[in-house]
């Protein structure tokens, strides 16, 4: 059964106006990908930097897309994100599940992931946070509005989703 939070993220992505969704696999991302459905519009990409290029290019054609990934992937994505999406003012919705926080079992992933919010802020990339303190309906609304915010500001926007303790487990 799909987590209501994962389903909410998926519904929010479609409600954001995303026409194509690229994802970089993660155990946290998998329930969201399942909930998204539409394999004709949702596809894997090899690395996060490639996702910035492929999905990030859609606004050049008048379209809009979303990337689903995990937060430690920003280490791979930063140069592409800054030199392409940010520098060319291309709106993009990025939804990343948080690994660098409560509930994470992998000790070394914190070394990068705990710094992701500060890194993105330092780069001027707008971040919206989600965690167990709000319900699935709020998650859906925030993800959807983050897509509108990306288009309104002509910039990539990141939603960092902390699945820990939603439904009593890490997503």
């Amino acid at each position, binding site marked *: 059964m799909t987590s209501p939070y994962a389903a909410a993220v998926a519904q929010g992505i479609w409600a954001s106006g995303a026409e194509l969704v690229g994802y970089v696999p993660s155990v946290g991302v998998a329930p969201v990908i399942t909930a998204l459905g539409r394999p004709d519009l949702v*596809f894997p990409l*090899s690395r996060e930097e490639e996702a910035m290029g492929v*999905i990030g290019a859609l606004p050049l*054609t*008048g379209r809009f897309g979303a990337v689903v990934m995990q937060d430690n992937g920003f280490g791979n994505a930063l*140069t592409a994100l800054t*030199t*392409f999406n940010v520098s*060319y003012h291309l709106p993009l919705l990025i939804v990343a599940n948080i690994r660098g926080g409560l509930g994470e079992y992998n000790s070394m992933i914190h070394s990068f992931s705990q710094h992701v919010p500060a890194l993105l802020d330092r780069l001027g990339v707008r971040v919206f946070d989600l965690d167990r303190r709000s319900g699935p309906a709020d998650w859906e609304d925030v993800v959807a509005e983050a897509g509108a915010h990306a288009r309104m500001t002509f910039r990539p926007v990141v939603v960092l989703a902390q699945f820990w303790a939603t439904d009593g487990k890490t997503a």
Partner: protein
Amino acid sequence: MRRIDALQVLVEGTADLPVVVTCAATSRELAAIADRPNHLYLLDSMGLAGSVATGVALGLAGSAIPRVVAIEGDGSLFMNPNVLATGGYLRPDKLLLVLLDNAVYGSTGDLPTYSARIDLGALAAAAGWSVRQAADPRTLRAEFAKALEPGGPAFLHVRIEPGNASGVPKLLEDPVVIGRRFRDWLASR
């Protein structure tokens, strides 16, 4: 054939096609030959031309534009060879990647790439791209014309000599202007 000679041939064949071009010397030389609104110069995104062109090709699926042309270098493609696997997997019908392969990092002191030992055309073929080759202007002109025929992804492997054209100015335009100009050109098609 030097890079600028190959670019001259490509300029002749791409007046009505979107062109995504890799950074540094390749973008500068292309702009020096013809600075057109259908050119998307990637000013500093090494390795990303193929990915961006893949996204543009996906975005233009169903449009009247027949081809999206990426102009990439071997050093840049070796930085992101995932472009080949992703293109082979997603199979964007309009994507044509032209690889200008001089076996060196031409914008960074002509240090050697892997190209002397690894055939990027063979890698593309293994990933499912249809591959053509050229090493002189006449063959490039003919093979480029064939590569414009429907069906993708297509890969044109062009062997060129090392060496940058002299006297070519830096490309100092604001990327926002470059991107908007490219988008407006696409929207007008």
